[in-house]
Protein backbone atom coordinates (compact mmCIF):
# COMPACT_ATOMS: atom_id res chain seq x y z
CA UNK A 1 0.00 0.00 0.00
CA UNK A 2 1.56 3.29 -0.92
CA UNK A 3 -0.37 6.33 0.16
CA UNK A 4 1.48 9.61 -0.12
CA UNK A 5 0.75 12.92 1.46
CA UNK A 6 2.44 16.20 2.08
CA UNK A 7 4.35 16.99 5.24
CA UNK A 8 2.22 18.70 7.85
CA UNK A 9 -0.96 17.06 6.63
CA UNK A 10 -2.58 17.64 10.02
CA UNK A 11 -2.35 21.32 9.33
CA UNK A 12 -3.99 20.80 5.97
CA UNK A 13 -6.78 18.78 7.53
CA UNK A 14 -7.43 21.39 10.16
CA UNK A 15 -7.47 24.12 7.56
CA UNK A 16 -9.68 22.11 5.23
CA UNK A 17 -12.14 21.16 7.94
CA UNK A 18 -12.24 24.63 9.43
CA UNK A 19 -12.83 26.20 6.05
CA UNK A 20 -15.58 23.69 5.33
CA UNK A 21 -17.35 24.28 8.60
CA UNK A 22 -17.29 28.04 8.22
CA UNK A 23 -18.31 27.63 4.58
CA UNK A 24 -15.84 30.32 3.56
CA UNK A 25 -16.39 31.41 -0.02
CA UNK A 26 -12.74 30.88 -0.97
CA UNK A 27 -12.68 27.51 0.82
CA UNK A 28 -12.42 24.03 -0.57
CA UNK A 29 -15.04 22.47 -2.84
CA UNK A 30 -17.86 21.12 -0.67
CA UNK A 31 -18.60 17.52 -1.54
CA UNK A 32 -22.10 16.85 -2.79
CA UNK A 33 -24.05 14.69 -0.34
CA UNK A 34 -27.41 12.95 -0.69
CA UNK A 35 -29.16 12.90 2.71
CA UNK A 36 -32.21 11.20 1.12
CA UNK A 37 -30.11 8.03 0.85
CA UNK A 38 -29.80 7.90 4.62
CA UNK A 39 -27.55 9.31 7.34
CA UNK A 40 -23.79 8.81 7.43
CA UNK A 41 -22.18 6.52 10.00
CA UNK A 42 -21.39 9.52 12.17
CA UNK A 43 -21.70 13.28 12.21
CA UNK A 44 -20.19 14.98 9.18
CA UNK A 45 -17.67 16.69 11.43
CA UNK A 46 -16.38 13.38 12.74
CA UNK A 47 -16.45 11.77 9.29
CA UNK A 48 -14.32 14.56 7.82
CA UNK A 49 -11.64 14.01 10.40
CA UNK A 50 -11.80 10.27 10.99
CA UNK A 51 -13.10 8.49 7.90
CA UNK A 52 -9.66 7.14 7.05
CA UNK A 53 -9.09 5.88 10.60
CA UNK A 54 -12.41 4.06 10.49
CA UNK A 55 -11.68 2.57 7.08
CA UNK A 56 -8.24 1.35 8.05
CA UNK A 57 -9.54 -0.17 11.26
CA UNK A 58 -12.36 -1.89 9.42
CA UNK A 59 -10.21 -3.33 6.72
CA UNK A 60 -8.12 -5.17 9.25
CA UNK A 61 -11.21 -6.52 11.00
CA UNK A 62 -12.78 -7.64 7.74
CA UNK A 63 -9.73 -9.14 6.07
CA UNK A 64 -8.25 -10.85 9.13
CA UNK A 65 -11.30 -11.67 11.26
CA UNK A 66 -13.95 -12.04 8.59
CA UNK A 67 -16.21 -9.25 9.84
CA UNK A 68 -18.79 -8.83 7.09
CA UNK A 69 -21.48 -6.26 6.35
CA UNK A 70 -19.98 -3.90 8.92
CA UNK A 71 -21.06 -0.28 9.28
CA UNK A 72 -17.79 0.91 7.74
CA UNK A 73 -18.08 -1.42 4.75
CA UNK A 74 -16.34 0.15 1.77
CA UNK A 75 -19.19 -0.64 -0.59
CA UNK A 76 -21.63 1.17 1.67
CA UNK A 77 -19.62 4.38 1.34
CA UNK A 78 -19.67 3.87 -2.41
CA UNK A 79 -23.40 3.18 -2.54
CA UNK A 80 -24.29 6.30 -0.53
CA UNK A 81 -21.75 8.70 -1.91
CA UNK A 82 -21.71 7.84 -5.64
CA UNK A 83 -22.67 10.73 -7.88
CA UNK A 84 -25.89 10.21 -9.86
CA UNK A 85 -24.04 11.41 -12.96
CA UNK A 86 -20.97 9.15 -12.95
CA UNK A 87 -22.46 6.56 -10.54
CA UNK A 88 -19.02 6.63 -8.97
CA UNK A 89 -17.16 8.12 -6.02
CA UNK A 90 -13.92 8.55 -7.96
CA UNK A 91 -14.54 8.89 -11.71
CA UNK A 92 -14.76 12.68 -12.11
CA UNK A 93 -12.91 15.44 -10.26
CA UNK A 94 -16.18 16.46 -8.61
CA UNK A 95 -16.86 12.95 -7.31
CA UNK A 96 -17.06 12.46 -3.57
CA UNK A 97 -13.69 10.88 -2.72
CA UNK A 98 -11.72 13.07 -5.14
CA UNK A 99 -12.40 16.77 -4.52
CA UNK A 100 -11.32 17.02 -0.87
CA UNK A 101 -8.30 14.86 -1.41
CA UNK A 102 -7.09 16.98 -4.30
CA UNK A 103 -7.56 20.08 -2.17
CA UNK A 104 -5.74 18.61 0.83
CA UNK A 105 -3.05 16.94 -1.34
CA UNK A 106 -3.97 13.46 -0.13
CA UNK A 107 -3.51 10.60 -2.53
CA UNK A 108 -5.24 7.28 -1.87
CA UNK A 109 -4.68 4.08 -3.82
CA UNK A 110 -7.88 2.39 -2.66
CA UNK A 111 -9.50 2.53 -6.09
CA UNK A 112 -6.74 0.53 -7.72
CA UNK A 113 -8.56 -2.42 -6.19
CA UNK A 114 -11.88 -1.28 -4.76
CA UNK A 115 -14.61 -0.66 -7.32
CA UNK A 116 -15.52 3.06 -7.14
CA UNK A 117 -18.65 2.57 -9.23
CA UNK A 118 -21.98 1.89 -7.57
CA UNK A 119 -23.63 0.80 -10.81
CA UNK A 120 -23.51 -2.90 -9.96
CA UNK A 121 -24.67 -2.22 -6.39
CA UNK A 122 -27.61 -0.20 -7.71
CA UNK A 123 -28.50 -3.04 -10.07
CA UNK A 124 -28.64 -5.32 -7.03
CA UNK A 125 -30.89 -2.88 -5.21
CA UNK A 126 -28.19 -1.93 -2.74
CA UNK A 127 -27.95 1.71 -3.77
CA UNK A 128 -28.08 4.10 -0.83
CA UNK A 129 -27.21 1.17 1.44
CA UNK A 130 -30.82 0.05 1.47
Amino acid at each position, binding site marked *: *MSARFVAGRRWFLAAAAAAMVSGAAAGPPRPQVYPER*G*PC*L*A*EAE*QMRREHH*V*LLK*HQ*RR*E*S*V*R*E*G*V*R*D*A*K*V*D*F*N*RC*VACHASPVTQSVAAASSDFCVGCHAYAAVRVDCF*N*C*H*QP*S*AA*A*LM*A*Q*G*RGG*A*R
Partner: protein
Amino acid sequence: MNATVQEREQPLNRERRSWLSHFAALAGAAMVAPGVHLLAITSAEGAADAKKRWGMLIDATRCDPHCARCVIACHEENGLPTPTRASDVRWIRKVALREKRSGREVSLPVMCLHCANPPCRDVCPTGATFKRKDGVVLVDRHICIGCRYCVMACPYKARNFVYAPVREQRNEVPRGAGCAEGCTLCVHRIDRGRLPACVEQCPNRALIFGDLNDPSSELVQRLQSISATILRADLRLDPAVRIHGV
Protein backbone atom coordinates in the same frame (compact mmCIF):
# COMPACT_ATOMS: atom_id res chain seq x y z
CA MET B 1 1.00 -35.17 -8.92
CA ASN B 2 3.73 -37.73 -9.15
CA ALA B 3 6.29 -38.52 -11.81
CA THR B 4 4.13 -40.98 -13.71
CA VAL B 5 1.49 -38.47 -14.67
CA GLN B 6 1.55 -35.63 -17.15
CA GLU B 7 -0.23 -32.42 -16.53
CA ARG B 8 -1.78 -30.19 -19.14
CA GLU B 9 -4.21 -27.39 -18.85
CA GLN B 10 -7.63 -27.68 -20.42
CA PRO B 11 -9.14 -24.84 -22.43
CA LEU B 12 -11.87 -22.88 -20.72
CA ASN B 13 -15.27 -22.98 -22.43
CA ARG B 14 -16.82 -19.75 -21.46
CA GLU B 15 -20.52 -19.39 -20.91
CA ARG B 16 -22.26 -16.41 -19.40
CA ARG B 17 -24.57 -16.60 -16.48
CA SER B 18 -26.44 -13.99 -14.51
CA TRP B 19 -25.34 -13.64 -10.93
CA LEU B 20 -27.76 -10.90 -10.07
CA SER B 21 -30.37 -13.21 -8.63
CA HIS B 22 -27.84 -14.58 -6.15
CA PHE B 23 -26.82 -11.17 -4.98
CA ALA B 24 -30.33 -9.91 -4.60
CA ALA B 25 -30.51 -12.24 -1.62
CA LEU B 26 -27.75 -10.26 0.05
CA ALA B 27 -29.58 -6.98 -0.27
CA GLY B 28 -30.95 -6.94 3.25
CA ALA B 29 -27.71 -7.90 4.93
CA ALA B 30 -25.90 -4.58 4.53
CA MET B 31 -28.46 -2.56 6.46
CA VAL B 32 -27.60 -0.65 9.58
CA ALA B 33 -30.09 0.65 12.10
CA PRO B 34 -31.33 4.07 11.04
CA GLY B 35 -30.23 6.96 13.19
CA VAL B 36 -26.96 5.38 14.30
CA HIS B 37 -24.75 8.36 14.93
CA LEU B 38 -21.91 7.82 17.32
CA LEU B 39 -19.44 5.27 16.14
CA ALA B 40 -17.29 3.50 18.67
CA ILE B 41 -14.31 1.59 17.35
CA THR B 42 -14.80 -1.89 18.71
CA SER B 43 -13.22 -5.25 18.10
CA ALA B 44 -16.11 -7.08 16.54
CA GLU B 45 -16.35 -10.87 16.44
CA GLY B 46 -15.82 -11.91 12.85
CA ALA B 47 -16.94 -14.94 10.92
CA ALA B 48 -13.46 -16.47 11.10
CA ASP B 49 -13.89 -19.14 13.78
CA ALA B 50 -10.85 -20.87 15.29
CA LYS B 51 -12.92 -24.00 16.01
CA LYS B 52 -13.48 -24.55 12.29
CA ARG B 53 -11.12 -25.62 9.56
CA TRP B 54 -12.61 -25.11 6.14
CA GLY B 55 -11.65 -27.70 3.60
CA MET B 56 -12.71 -29.37 0.40
CA LEU B 57 -12.78 -32.72 -1.32
CA ILE B 58 -12.18 -32.79 -5.06
CA ASP B 59 -13.66 -36.04 -6.34
CA ALA B 60 -11.97 -36.66 -9.70
CA THR B 61 -14.12 -39.76 -10.26
CA ARG B 62 -17.14 -37.45 -10.59
CA CYS B 63 -15.47 -34.73 -12.65
CA ASP B 64 -16.50 -34.47 -16.29
CA PRO B 65 -13.43 -33.88 -18.50
CA HIS B 66 -15.46 -31.66 -20.85
CA CYS B 67 -16.89 -29.45 -18.13
CA ALA B 68 -15.32 -26.26 -16.77
CA ARG B 69 -18.28 -24.86 -14.87
CA CYS B 70 -16.24 -24.49 -11.68
CA VAL B 71 -13.63 -22.41 -13.50
CA ILE B 72 -16.27 -20.21 -15.11
CA ALA B 73 -18.06 -19.82 -11.78
CA CYS B 74 -14.81 -18.72 -10.12
CA HIS B 75 -14.03 -16.16 -12.80
CA GLU B 76 -17.53 -14.69 -12.72
CA GLU B 77 -17.76 -14.62 -8.93
CA ASN B 78 -14.38 -13.00 -8.45
CA GLY B 79 -14.41 -10.76 -11.52
CA LEU B 80 -11.37 -12.43 -13.07
CA PRO B 81 -10.97 -11.85 -16.81
CA THR B 82 -11.08 -14.80 -19.19
CA PRO B 83 -7.49 -16.06 -19.31
CA THR B 84 -5.79 -16.02 -22.69
CA ARG B 85 -2.08 -15.95 -21.83
CA ALA B 86 0.09 -17.91 -19.43
CA SER B 87 0.55 -14.79 -17.29
CA ASP B 88 -3.20 -14.31 -16.79
CA VAL B 89 -4.69 -14.95 -13.38
CA ARG B 90 -6.22 -18.35 -12.63
CA TRP B 91 -7.41 -19.12 -9.12
CA ILE B 92 -8.73 -22.52 -10.20
CA ARG B 93 -7.78 -24.49 -13.29
CA LYS B 94 -8.83 -27.77 -14.83
CA VAL B 95 -6.00 -30.24 -15.37
CA ALA B 96 -5.93 -33.60 -17.10
CA LEU B 97 -3.66 -36.25 -15.65
CA ARG B 98 -2.55 -39.21 -17.73
CA GLU B 99 -0.82 -42.25 -16.37
CA LYS B 100 1.86 -42.99 -18.97
CA ARG B 101 1.79 -46.80 -18.81
CA SER B 102 -1.93 -47.49 -18.76
CA GLY B 103 -3.04 -44.35 -20.54
CA ARG B 104 -5.69 -43.79 -17.85
CA GLU B 105 -6.84 -40.17 -17.88
CA VAL B 106 -8.53 -38.22 -15.16
CA SER B 107 -9.70 -34.63 -15.18
CA LEU B 108 -9.99 -32.45 -12.12
CA PRO B 109 -9.87 -28.84 -10.96
CA VAL B 110 -7.00 -27.64 -8.76
CA MET B 111 -6.65 -24.49 -6.71
CA CYS B 112 -4.98 -23.22 -3.54
CA LEU B 113 -5.01 -26.16 -1.11
CA HIS B 114 -5.10 -23.95 2.00
CA CYS B 115 -2.25 -25.72 3.80
CA ALA B 116 -2.07 -25.84 7.57
CA ASN B 117 1.64 -25.04 7.22
CA PRO B 118 1.62 -22.79 4.19
CA PRO B 119 5.06 -22.15 2.66
CA CYS B 120 3.67 -19.01 0.98
CA ARG B 121 3.06 -17.54 4.42
CA ASP B 122 6.46 -18.61 5.70
CA VAL B 123 8.32 -16.74 2.98
CA CYS B 124 6.16 -13.60 2.99
CA PRO B 125 8.37 -10.72 4.13
CA THR B 126 5.55 -8.38 5.18
CA GLY B 127 3.03 -10.73 6.77
CA ALA B 128 0.59 -10.04 3.94
CA THR B 129 0.06 -13.76 3.38
CA PHE B 130 -1.60 -15.14 6.47
CA LYS B 131 -3.74 -18.02 7.62
CA ARG B 132 -7.07 -17.07 9.07
CA LYS B 133 -8.20 -18.71 12.30
CA ASP B 134 -10.44 -21.03 10.29
CA GLY B 135 -7.55 -22.17 8.08
CA VAL B 136 -8.21 -20.08 4.98
CA VAL B 137 -4.91 -18.86 3.51
CA LEU B 138 -5.25 -15.32 2.17
CA VAL B 139 -3.25 -12.34 0.95
CA ASP B 140 -3.90 -9.10 2.78
CA ARG B 141 -3.39 -6.98 -0.27
CA HIS B 142 -3.19 -3.82 1.78
CA ILE B 143 0.29 -4.87 2.85
CA CYS B 144 1.38 -7.03 -0.08
CA ILE B 145 4.40 -5.45 -1.77
CA GLY B 146 4.30 -7.71 -4.82
CA CYS B 147 7.63 -9.46 -4.24
CA ARG B 148 6.25 -12.79 -5.50
CA TYR B 149 8.16 -14.96 -3.05
CA CYS B 150 4.89 -16.76 -2.34
CA VAL B 151 4.40 -17.49 -6.03
CA MET B 152 7.77 -19.23 -6.05
CA ALA B 153 7.27 -21.00 -2.72
CA CYS B 154 3.95 -22.69 -3.49
CA PRO B 155 4.56 -26.28 -4.62
CA TYR B 156 1.07 -26.41 -6.16
CA LYS B 157 1.51 -23.33 -8.38
CA ALA B 158 -1.59 -21.88 -6.82
CA ARG B 159 -0.43 -18.29 -6.36
CA ASN B 160 -0.84 -15.72 -9.14
CA PHE B 161 0.56 -12.29 -9.70
CA VAL B 162 -1.57 -9.52 -11.15
CA TYR B 163 0.46 -7.78 -13.85
CA ALA B 164 -2.10 -5.56 -15.53
CA PRO B 165 -4.19 -2.81 -13.91
CA VAL B 166 -7.69 -4.02 -13.05
CA ARG B 167 -10.78 -1.98 -13.87
CA GLU B 168 -13.64 -4.46 -13.83
CA GLN B 169 -13.55 -5.52 -10.18
CA ARG B 170 -16.74 -6.80 -8.67
CA ASN B 171 -17.67 -4.61 -5.71
CA GLU B 172 -17.54 -7.64 -3.41
CA VAL B 173 -14.08 -8.69 -4.58
CA PRO B 174 -11.50 -5.91 -4.64
CA ARG B 175 -8.29 -6.81 -6.45
CA GLY B 176 -5.60 -4.95 -8.33
CA ALA B 177 -2.22 -4.88 -10.04
CA GLY B 178 1.02 -5.46 -8.20
CA CYS B 179 -0.28 -8.02 -5.72
CA ALA B 180 -0.16 -11.76 -5.34
CA GLU B 181 -3.49 -13.53 -5.10
CA GLY B 182 -5.09 -16.93 -5.19
CA CYS B 183 -8.22 -18.88 -4.30
CA THR B 184 -9.83 -17.36 -1.20
CA LEU B 185 -12.32 -20.25 -0.80
CA CYS B 186 -14.73 -17.38 -1.56
CA VAL B 187 -14.35 -15.97 1.97
CA HIS B 188 -16.83 -13.23 1.14
CA ARG B 189 -19.43 -15.97 0.57
CA ILE B 190 -18.54 -18.55 3.24
CA ASP B 191 -18.45 -15.82 5.91
CA ARG B 192 -22.11 -15.25 5.04
CA GLY B 193 -22.99 -18.92 5.15
CA ARG B 194 -22.86 -19.59 1.41
CA LEU B 195 -20.83 -22.13 -0.54
CA PRO B 196 -17.79 -21.21 -2.64
CA ALA B 197 -18.90 -20.44 -6.19
CA CYS B 198 -17.12 -23.44 -7.76
CA VAL B 199 -18.76 -25.84 -5.32
CA GLU B 200 -22.19 -24.33 -5.84
CA GLN B 201 -21.92 -24.51 -9.62
CA CYS B 202 -20.49 -28.02 -10.03
CA PRO B 203 -23.23 -30.04 -11.77
CA ASN B 204 -21.76 -33.40 -10.69
CA ARG B 205 -21.11 -32.67 -7.03
CA ALA B 206 -17.45 -33.39 -7.62
CA LEU B 207 -16.56 -30.64 -5.13
CA ILE B 208 -17.56 -31.00 -1.50
CA PHE B 209 -16.95 -28.12 0.87
CA GLY B 210 -17.11 -28.28 4.64
CA ASP B 211 -15.53 -28.10 8.06
CA LEU B 212 -12.74 -30.64 8.55
CA ASN B 213 -13.22 -30.35 12.33
CA ASP B 214 -16.89 -31.32 12.18
CA PRO B 215 -17.26 -35.13 12.19
CA SER B 216 -20.89 -34.88 11.14
CA SER B 217 -20.15 -32.81 8.02
CA GLU B 218 -20.60 -34.43 4.63
CA LEU B 219 -16.96 -33.65 3.92
CA VAL B 220 -15.61 -35.60 6.89
CA GLN B 221 -18.05 -38.48 6.30
CA ARG B 222 -16.83 -38.80 2.73
CA LEU B 223 -13.20 -38.58 3.78
CA GLN B 224 -13.81 -41.42 6.22
CA SER B 225 -15.23 -43.72 3.56
CA ILE B 226 -12.77 -43.11 0.71
CA SER B 227 -9.01 -42.90 0.50
CA ALA B 228 -8.40 -39.32 -0.56
CA THR B 229 -4.95 -38.29 -1.69
CA ILE B 230 -2.96 -35.55 -0.07
CA LEU B 231 -0.94 -34.02 -2.90
CA ARG B 232 2.77 -34.11 -2.14
CA ALA B 233 2.12 -35.55 1.33
CA ASP B 234 5.91 -35.79 1.70
CA LEU B 235 6.05 -32.01 2.15
CA ARG B 236 3.84 -32.28 5.26
CA LEU B 237 1.97 -29.11 4.50
CA ASP B 238 -1.34 -30.65 5.62
CA PRO B 239 -3.56 -29.16 2.90
CA ALA B 240 -7.25 -28.61 3.62
CA VAL B 241 -8.14 -29.61 0.06
CA ARG B 242 -8.00 -33.37 -0.54
CA ILE B 243 -8.28 -35.19 -3.84
CA HIS B 244 -9.98 -38.47 -4.62
CA GLY B 245 -9.46 -40.65 -7.68
CA VAL B 246 -6.08 -39.62 -9.05
